[in-house]
């Protein structure tokens, strides 16, 4: 069974710059969590979008667009949506899932079974190292024996 656990994402340490790629991932997660909370409240409340638009004094198409995807809402927009939907307010707290994850999964368990160990530079998009890894995986796939049912 091939799975894809990796050791690539870790908590920041020292003064090392965080890549914009990592920040992009974390930002997207945050947007999606906000979106989940708002849509969950919307479904629970049963309020229709037209009423929500009236409560917020916004055009229906604006509200429709806001609810279509996890967009980069301003903090006030998130707050307004939650309160207007059901009178809810967001509960804000910090978590450390990456540090917890390291404790739960020793390195030897989270190394990909199938892939060679990759250096940080290997995964810069389009590098020769990256292409070589993909070629290696494809070669492994072609060479692997096919299990035959009894």
């Amino acid at each position: 069974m091939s799975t894809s656990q990796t050791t690539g994402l870790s908590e920041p340490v020292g003064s090392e710059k965080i890549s914009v790629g990592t920040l992009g991932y974390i930002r997207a997660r945050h947007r999606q969590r906000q979106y989940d909370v708002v849509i969950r409240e919307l479904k629970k409340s049963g309020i229709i979008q037209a009423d929500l638009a009236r409560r917020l004094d916004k055009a229906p198409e604006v509200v429709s667009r806001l609810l279509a995807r996890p967009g980069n809402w301003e903090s006030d927009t998130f707050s307004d949506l939650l309160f207007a939907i059901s009178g809810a307010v967001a509960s804000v707290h910090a978590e450390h899932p990456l540090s917890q994850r390291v404790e739960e999964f020793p390195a030897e368990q989270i190394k990909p079974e199938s892939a060679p160990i990759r250096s940080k530079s290997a995964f810069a998009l389009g590098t020769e190292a990256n292409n070589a890894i993909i070629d290696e995986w494809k070669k492994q796939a072609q060479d692997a024996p096919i299990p035959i049912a009894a």
Partner: protein
Amino acid sequence: MTFYSWRQALRVRITAGAFNLGLYGSRFPRKQRYRGLLTYMSICATLMRLLRRHRLFELESLFTGNDTARTMIVSPDILAVVTPPFSDTEHGRRLGEFRAWLDNFLEGGEVSVAEDPQQKPPDAMLARVTPVEDEFWSVRVTEPEDTAGIRSLGGFGAKDKFICLIWDFREGIPVFDDEVDAARDAWRDLFGSRGPMSGESLDEYLTNYRAV
């Protein structure tokens, strides 16, 4: 759970899959239940073989590991680009967004879904592509807003189990139909004549969605 052989793993997966599909004791007519079960069984057997041969990979969430509500299977090409570290470049930022989309799917997050390829809102996160009967879907990464985003095509193997085969930056797809053709070819190469899962309504494809 420890499996002693791939056959045991397959049996467990088929049984679990059947329960996931609601095939046991469901309200669907018996004929429909069996049709769904047989389709999933045949795809599942092939999928297990492809996973063993490393032609496909089961993605795990960067935050929750294999403790996920949904399943995402990806091609080696996709796994390579969504595996961190993400580079300190614009490309890295976009690929970080792509991975976040996939992890959100895995973790059971809300997904806005457009069923009609001709009338999809620009912000839909997942959209059916034409021809509808081929059952291919486009993963639509529309952030960062100042970019054209990323599109990744694939199909459902079962409810809440998506198989993502190809990807590209949106600006790298001049003719979208060609991308669908490429997805169809990739699927055929892996699964032969067995197409992606076909359902009567969105409820049969995934949970926790929002039709847009």
